[in-house]
């Protein structure tokens, strides 16, 4: 069965259609399609190769779209988690910055600041370690781990011995 253009395409109506460039153009294309028999395709169906190629392209497009969608969601989620983690790290840094330099190693090995903002990451762990990198300088490394240790955010604070009186 030949698929023919709708009547309004084949026969532009009214005087405007004869004068109209678009109207004449559409009419010409419709006639060409009929004469070349392009629309006979529908009668014999598609070959297996054609179908396979079409499915392959469709599968590729769907797979790539889904992969992009999943990656986007994953990154959005990670970005949200990191923003929460760095707020907690920055707050903890404010505390650690003001602790007595001499007793830094003996301070709490987990966060002393509020970790309420980390609730969506639960279960999580907060770790604080202090190392002396050189005389008069201590590095305070604050770490948050979540997703069973698969994800982590870290912030290192360098404390310098100012001679007993804290700058802060």
């Amino acid at each position, binding site marked *: 069965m030949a698929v023919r253009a709708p009547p309004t395409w084949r026969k532009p109506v009214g005087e405007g259609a004869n004068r109209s460039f678009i109207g004449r153009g559409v009419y010409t294309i419709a006639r060409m399609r009929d004469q070349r028999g392009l629309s006979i395709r529908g009668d014999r169906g598609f070959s297996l190769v054609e179908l396979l190629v079409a499915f392959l392209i469709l599968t590729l497009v769907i797979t790539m779209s889904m992969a992009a969608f999943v990656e986007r969601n994953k990154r959005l989620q990670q970005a949200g988690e990191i923003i*929460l983690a760095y707020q907690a790290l920055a707050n903890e840094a*404010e505390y650690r910055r*003001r602790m007595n330099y001499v007793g830094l190693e003996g301070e709490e090995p987990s966060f002393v600041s509020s970790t309420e*903002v980390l609730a969506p990451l639960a279960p999580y762990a907060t770790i604080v370690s202090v190392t002396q990198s050189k005389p008069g300088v201590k590095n305070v490394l604050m770490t948050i781990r979540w997703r069973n240790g698969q994800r982590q955010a870290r912030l290192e604070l360098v404390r310098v011995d100012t001679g007993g009186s804290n700058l802060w």
Partner: protein
Amino acid sequence: MVRRAAAGYTLVEVVVAMAIFGMFLFVLAQLTSEMRSVERRLPVNMHKHPQVIAVLARLRRDVMDATEYKSSHDGYTSSDKVLIVETMINGGLQDVVWDFQTPGEVHRRSYNVGVPVDWVARGLPLTFSALEIDAIKLNPRSKWAARITATDQKGRLAIDTILQPRATE
């Protein structure tokens, strides 16, 4: 020859088509449910909101340059919804009132030689507040910090920031 349209589809063809369709539906359902679970768990990221960024930036500057927190000023009384600071500006001192009392709005009123100048940020989270002004008091010589919090529409804590006045001694 029997034409395709007249013969219809075989059971195998229908089953295969349904299976492929079902697989797509399953994947879509999985993705949607995962997305919803993330939405439920994580608060709205307010740090990408320009108004929130503006409020935090101005607040940070006022608090970092603060010389003292005041208990009252010009009819305002300090509370978890009102933060009053005396802050340094252009070599002088200025009283600044941060008013979080109006839901969704933050008002900053600064007093320039006694004349109030207002700055307002709108479209903010409803529960923006200066929760504590004594968040950190580890060292008797250290100045008190302000802890700024904000929750999203579902009551999840989205902002929790400690702002500490810098040393000016």
